[in-house]
């Protein structure tokens, strides 16, 4: 290609790139604006004179305020632990159930698949009232246990649905060969079939962790007390009471809380995209 050909191609593609740039600005501007605001001083946040899209004297003061908020790290660990534990438990239970639904012939397998799909698409806003009542009777309402026990209600259906799709596409022959060679059924499944479905298992894990980390309804409705808050509810309680918002630390919190998910996601972008159709939980 000579210079004029490249130039002609660039001109032809210009509208495409302009349209893409417009879409990217629309989708990403809020994150930029939140991040930029988090670096501004209290006075500058409300000052729109001059170029307000770049902080004039960047400061980490809002981050300092956030990290020195009483209980901030309690909320952080709560969120991390609840997300990790519920993810591990849900993925294990879902591997078993997804495997059974996709690969084993037994009475009720098809019905089980249908029921799992129904629980997967049922909205979360549907069950928090009766769950709160039931957890109260069990003496779990208010504590973090309420989240450990309820988060799997949306993680297991989703992971089982996702994983049964992966398991259905793993060939049967290697497992059968291993059993001919003397391995037990369970041994063959664990050593042969599960490793072949590892990509699906990782995807289920990432989606689960993200869903737990981002969860809101149950942490609002089912926990109480400063010690039992998650990052979202804790930060909201500290900096966003009603209409009154302390913008600086809130924007710092928005930035900080997005980082772990963004990192996880940039490592596994392809898996995210491939598992996306199954991951339509947000509406």
């Amino acid at each position, binding site marked *: 290609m000579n210079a004029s050909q490249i130039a002609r191609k660039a001109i032809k593609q210009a509208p495409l790139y302009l349209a893409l740039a417009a879409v990217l600005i629309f989708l990403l501007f809020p994150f930029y604006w*939140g991040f930029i605001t988090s670096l501004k001083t209290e006075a500058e946040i409300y000052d729109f004179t001059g170029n307000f899209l770049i902080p004039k004297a960047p400061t980490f003061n809002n981050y300092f305020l956030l990290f020195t908020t009483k209980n901030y790290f309690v909320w952080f660990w709560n969120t991390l632990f609840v997300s990790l534990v519920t993810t591990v438990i849900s993925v294990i239970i879902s591997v078993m159930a997804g495997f059974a639904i996709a690969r084993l012939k037994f009475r009720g397998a098809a019905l089980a698949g249908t029921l799992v799909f129904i629980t997967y698409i049922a909205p979360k806003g549907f069950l928090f009232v009766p769950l709160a009542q039931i957890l109260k009777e069990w003496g779990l309402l208010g504590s973090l246990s309420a989240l450990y026990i309820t988060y799997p209600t949306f993680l297991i259906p989703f992971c089982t649905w996702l994983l049964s799709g992966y398991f259905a596409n793993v060939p049967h022959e290697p497992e059968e060969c291993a059993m001919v060679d003397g391995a037990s059924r369970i041994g063959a499944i664990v050593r042969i079939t599960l490793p072949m479905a590892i990509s699906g298992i990782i995807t289920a894990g990432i989606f689960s962790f993200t869903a737990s980390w981002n969860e*809101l309804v149950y942490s609002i409705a089912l926990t109480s007390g400063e010690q039992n808050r998650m990052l979202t509810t804790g930060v909201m309680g500290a900096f966003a009471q009603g209409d009154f918002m302390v913008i600086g630390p809130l924007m710092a919190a928005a930035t900080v809380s997005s980082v772990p998910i963004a990192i996880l996601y940039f490592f596994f972008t392809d898996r995210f995209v491939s598992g996306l159709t199954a991951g339509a939980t947000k509406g």
Partner: protein
Amino acid sequence: MQTPTLSAKISRLLHKDSTLGPILLSPGFLFLAVMMAYPFFYAIYLSFTDKEVGGAANFTGFENYEKLFSTTLFAKTVVNSLVYTSIALVLKFSCGMALALLLNRPFIGQRFAKALMLLPWILPTAFSTMIWQWIFSPAFSVVNEVLVNKLHLISQPLPFLRDETWAMGSLIFINLWRGLPFFAITFLAAIQSVSNEIIEASRIDGASPWQSFWLIVFPAILPVVTIVMLISTIGTLGDFDLPFLLTRGGPNNATTMFALTTYNLSLGSGLIGLGSAVTMTMFPFLLVLIIASLINVRRQQQG
């Protein structure tokens, strides 16, 4: 010799499909039965009682439903939910399809652009909505600042979250912002799975790009489009996060929806029976959508 027979029995149970299947399924099944099926039936029961926080539940028949149907709050809840869901879905579908077609053309940095685009869908809604609250803030909205003082396009700031219609519009806008990446990327994946040869053949036969999209590509991706739309409709209809975070249902209940009204009545005012009745009124809508989804998934699995 007790032990070998026992272990032989166990290994036989773990070997046959007919026994291994139920064994593997049981932990998940039991959990969902206790934590989803039981609460669901419990909610039906509660909706027929006068249960309040701290009080006992007395059976009151259809009293909660009669009470609900006579309130403007409930009428607004239903209308708001349907307006929010239908407009947001139409926008997510049309903008998502347009963006998918845009992304379908080869360009430099496609992978990177796709990764960046997904961020609104992947990052925590609670925090991204706080940013939107700041963007739409009554006195210090950056959008108003640009429109009024920098570009001089309008003379008065827009009442994003203060006016009833604008508040609903803002919610729908943010729902579009959050859902658009998901729609675009799944539509794109479906479009790219359609065989290029068929499309090229139709072009050779004289079809315009517009025709070949609607006559060849769209019918081929319709199953994926339908299931994405149905699942998103259910999620949007039951959405709690956005209205709760952005408007708390206001102003004047103009943006309250099923999940938020349930929350406000049961956990805000302590009227658990009445709140459960709100949840149950969502059920007919859900049932239709769930059945449609099931039929669709069945068809996809068989085809």
